[in-house]
């Protein structure tokens, strides 16, 4: 392996940047942002150098001893293979663009330095997940990613909603992490190692090594992904996370962090047996479905995209569950491009609209913000799976996977979701960019600066071409044993190998598109609630998941907390300690009543004492 130390540098540069910003340059916005951007861009460059030197198809590890206590060996190690390399590209590449974009987006904010420090911290943690060669390292990065997400969602902490959203994201993620660590412990207990390669070897050597706990362990590990990739039932935090600045939504809650769950599943795919994969695929499919349904009735531009992210993540998870890591990762990558693009474009719209996020206040922005409009269109087309945009290929790969695995129910759901996706995306598209200006802000909207539009353009390029630049080749080399490398043309034509899913996908698109067109072309308000009635209310209120959780999980904990507090206050502190205190005091007050001050009493007590003494010894 050449440039063996380069990955370390890639990993640690953002951390150093975060540390330097926090410690020294918090006062200077420009310096701080440049340090942060520099770190991630340098990371991208170094990734390119490293991959150029080593090629994509290799596998290596490099590690430092970190913790070794008896059986517990956890190295600080990097796993370098196609999977992590591709993810490196995504994280540093997309991340870099978003960093640059942020420079423009956050320019007015007085806490920009803090923003970039957090962003760098996030980049470091995300790289940590990507590069980790063992579960503990991954868990560490996993948690760090969670906290950077927390910090960034709560970036505008003075807004109560931002604070709440951050808190919610953190706690819900923690629920997933609970299962994740639980699973890690179980795997470690059964297999005695944390290292991915070592685990894979022992599973390969003895597929039944996990024994009866295999399904449980797999599902517990999956809990981690459930939290981070916002799968049902832990999906509730992601829409709220849109309280963070838009670049954050793009980077963390669309392109990278939320994909970490999928990445982790692919990384540890060998651990999952058929049963657990089955469950995973259904959870993924279900998440995709409800998220898409919810998206249909949202009015906040970022929330719509967020639900779409949720839905797409469900896709990916479903695909992993269908034993299709390659399509899943493929979709993850293309999704990173086009969803980041969509978010950034939305961010551009929001800036242009002076921080107005309600789509029903917008309209006809295509004139005022041409670049944004154009790139947004590309993102939309990619998301909806229009050929030859990248989304088409990755989505088709997913549909094909479902078809090939003969999971027809999921296939049907997936196609339905594809239609829904197209519908809500174009709803957004039409309402925002077409029709009449629905508010004063919309009338005075303006195009964003170059530093923001440039990343849009670059991302648009990748969103367009992502389908045939060899992404599947690289992932395939990781997951498929007899893997052949396709040329660009072969990739271009890949969907035609299995035309039925492709056709289904296209039909779904068409249905969705025309539905949206007919309903929202010139709409000034949403006609759908009238047509759907109760269902629309359900969708609008996200199927009341928040309320249900509020009523169950939160209430239960608060109730238990109240009970515990009550016991503490009244039983332990009040009754028991109080009784001991009071009893002691009382017995003191009672005993000293003997001290009447009357000599006769004293004499009597004295004699009584003598009598007792004599009786005690000589009474028998």
């Amino acid at each position, binding site marked *: 392996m050449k440039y063996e130390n380069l990955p370390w540098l890639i990993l640690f540069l953002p951390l150093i940047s975060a540390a330097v910003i926090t410690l020294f340059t918090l006062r200077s916005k420009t310096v701080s942002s440049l340090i942060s951007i520099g770190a991630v861009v340098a990371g991208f460059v170094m990734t390119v150098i490293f991959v150029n030197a080593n090629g994509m198809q290799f596998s290596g590890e490099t590690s430092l*001893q970190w913790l070794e206590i*008896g059986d517990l060996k956890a190295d600080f190690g990097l796993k370098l293979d196609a999977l992590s390399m591709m993810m490196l590209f995504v994280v540093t590449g997309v991340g870099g663009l978003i960093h640059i974009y942020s420079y423009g987006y956050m320019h007015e904010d007085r806490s920009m330095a803090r923003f970039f420090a957090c962003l760098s911290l996030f980049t470091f943690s995300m790289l940590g997940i990507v590069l980790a060669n063992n579960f503990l390292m991954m868990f*560490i990065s996993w948690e760090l990613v969670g906290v950077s997400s927390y910090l960034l969602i709560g970036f505008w*902490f003075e807004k109560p909603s931002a604070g709440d959203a951050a808190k919610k994201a953190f*706690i819900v993620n923690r629920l997933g992490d609970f299962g994740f660590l639980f699973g890690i412990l179980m795997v470690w207990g059964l297999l005695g190692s944390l290292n991915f390669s070592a685990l894979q070897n022992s599973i390969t050597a003895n597929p039944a090594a996990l024994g009866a706990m295999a399904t449980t362990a797999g599902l517990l590990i999956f809990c981690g992904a459930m939290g981070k990739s916002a799968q049902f039932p832990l999906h509730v935090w992601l829409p709220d996370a849109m309280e963070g600045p838009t670049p954050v939504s793009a980077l963390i809650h669309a392109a990278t962090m939320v994909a970490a769950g999928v990445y982790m599943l692919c990384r540890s795919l060998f651990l999952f047996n058929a049963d657990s994969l089955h469950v995973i695929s259904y959870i993924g499919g279900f998440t995709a479905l409800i998220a898409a349904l919810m998206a249909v009735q949202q009015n906040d531009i970022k929330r719509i995209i967020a639900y779409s992210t949720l839905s797409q993540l469900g896709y990916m998870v479903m695909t992993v569950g269908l034993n299709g890591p390659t399509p899943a990762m493929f979709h993850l990558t293309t999704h990173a491009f086009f969803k980041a693009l969509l978010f950034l474009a939305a961010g551009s719209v929001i800036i242009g609209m002076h921080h107005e996020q309600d789509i029903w206040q917008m309209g006809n922005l295509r004139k005022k913000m041409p670049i944004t409009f154009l790139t947004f269109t590309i993102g939309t087309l990619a998301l909806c799976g229009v050929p030859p945009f990248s989304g088409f290929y990755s989505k088709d790969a997913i549909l094909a996977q479902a078809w090939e695995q003969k999971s027809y129910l999921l296939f049907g759901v997936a196609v339905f979701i594809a239609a829904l996706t197209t519908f809500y995306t174009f709803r957004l598209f039409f309402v925002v960019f077409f029709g009449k200006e629905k508010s004063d802000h919309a009338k005075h909207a303006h195009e964003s600066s170059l530093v923001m539009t440039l990343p849009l353009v670059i991302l648009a390029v990748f969103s367009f071409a992502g389908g045939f630049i060899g992404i599947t080749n690289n992932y395939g080399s990781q997951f498929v044993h007899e893997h052949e490398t396709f040329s660009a043309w072969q990739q271009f034509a890949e969907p035609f190998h299995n035309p039925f899913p492709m056709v289904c996908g296209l039909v779904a698109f068409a249905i969705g598109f025309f539905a949206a067109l007919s309903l929202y072309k010139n709409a000034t308000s949403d006609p759908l609630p009238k047509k759907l009635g109760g269902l629309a209310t359900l969708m609008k209120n996200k199927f009341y998941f928040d309320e249900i959780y509020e009523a169950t999980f939160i209430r239960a*904990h608060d109730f238990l907390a*109240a009970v515990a507090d009550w016991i503490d206050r009244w039983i332990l*502190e009040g009754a028991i300690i109080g009784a001991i205190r009071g009893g002691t005091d009382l017995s003191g007050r009672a005993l000293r009543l003997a001290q009447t001050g009357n000599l006769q009493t004293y004499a009597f007590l004295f004699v009584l004492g003598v009598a007792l003494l004599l009786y005690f010894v000589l009474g028998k």
Partner: protein
Amino acid sequence: MSILTYIAGWPLLAALVLIVVPRNFRVIIRAIAVLATLISAVLAVKMFCNYGSALPDADGYRFVQQIPWVESLGISYHVGVDGLNVGLILMGAIVAFAAALCSFEIQTREKEFYILLLVMTGGILGAFASLDLFFFYFLHELALVPTFIMIGVWGRGEKKNYATFQITLYLSIGALIALIGLIALYIQCGANTFDIPKIIEHAKTNPLAVNAQNFIFPLLLFGFGILVSLWPFHSWAPLGYGVAPSPTSMLHAGVLKKFGLYGLIRIALPLMPQAAQSWAHVIAWLCVGNILYVGWVAMRQKDLNLLIGNSSVAHMGFIFLGIASLNLIGITGAVLIMVAHGFLAALTFALSGYIYKQTGTLEISALGGLCRKLPFIGTALVMAAMAGCGLPGFANFVGEATVFFGAWKAFPTITVIALWGALVIGGIYMTRAIRNVLHGPLPEKWNSLSDASHLWRKLPYALLLASLFVFGVWPRLLTEKINPDAVKIVAQISPAPSADKLVAQSENSGVRN
């Protein structure tokens, strides 16, 4: 003279010096206190760094010094470090320095306060360094009493008197029960010495009778347990910390409280292996009380200090869990958390003390949005809260994770409950606290707050945070030291060899008869 004598001695000497300094020389008084603790801290760092190169004595202790004290009872001043206490002493010295720096908040009777603070520091550092049962206890008590007085005199809030007496009586009960256990141990051991290495050595050939173990172990467990706020003997802790001045809380919650745990690991486990095994389940289930139940209680608190106090109690559960697991990983993890939590508790109480000083209240509902006015303190508090709910990068995570791995083998169910407590419940109350204290809009009345501005003010917090980071990022600094000694302890606990030895011994005696 051993460097340990200096580490513990400087603060005590400074306390003596302070007695003769007139009380109106405030700056000098403060300077002496800070300087003494600084010297201690620097020496402790030096000791920590030189640990590897120092030669261990026959029993495996380094920087040893022994001076006979009461020959007829076998008591001697015997100090030394091994992996188990080296980190604790370092932590104690650093926390003491930070506490001395944070004591600027004390404005009345400073002279007495600093004297007590220094006595407390010297006492607890000495207790950790002590390899003699008597001094171990003696110095701990020496450190404990100033706590009571400090809470009583400089405490805050309406419940001050109640809390002072509560903590005094409660902790005294614990200390006395432990004392009885220690004396019983001394007598039962029959080596006629209070010297810990000698007792352990003696016990290798003459193990304590199992019924004696089963009598003494619970004494130590509950005696020390009360000192460490083991559930259900925890209610003194939040109450006491709620009213204590922050330097006191820092030193007590951070350092002094570890005494009981250290005692369990150092004394109870190697000397009473059978009892430890039969009691391990009890300890493990009591941990659930600490982690889960007290976690819930913490969720409910409306006062920041009470919340921190309860969370600190909850953290003790992890340490107990590590101890209860009775294996190398668990015990190493327990020691790791002991060190980590020391820094953390000190940090959180220092921060809450700062906030109290600025706002005059710690009522959570009265606070809010403080991050805007207090960016440094706020950031530090966020970090502390995150460390408190086990965020990697901070030393606590390493310890907790290690404990989980260790405990998984022994008590899977309880480990899962502990996981829930650590990840979910801890997360809930910590983020709620951040949300309600630091996030949200800033109430009008707090517009005049000022952040820790100059270096000296920032230093204690920065120092503690840095320590948390250092051990969080590079835990091998500690684990490499802890490991060999934890191995020794585990070797004494592990059932197979000791049982064999017992059998062999009975056979031997049979032959002799």
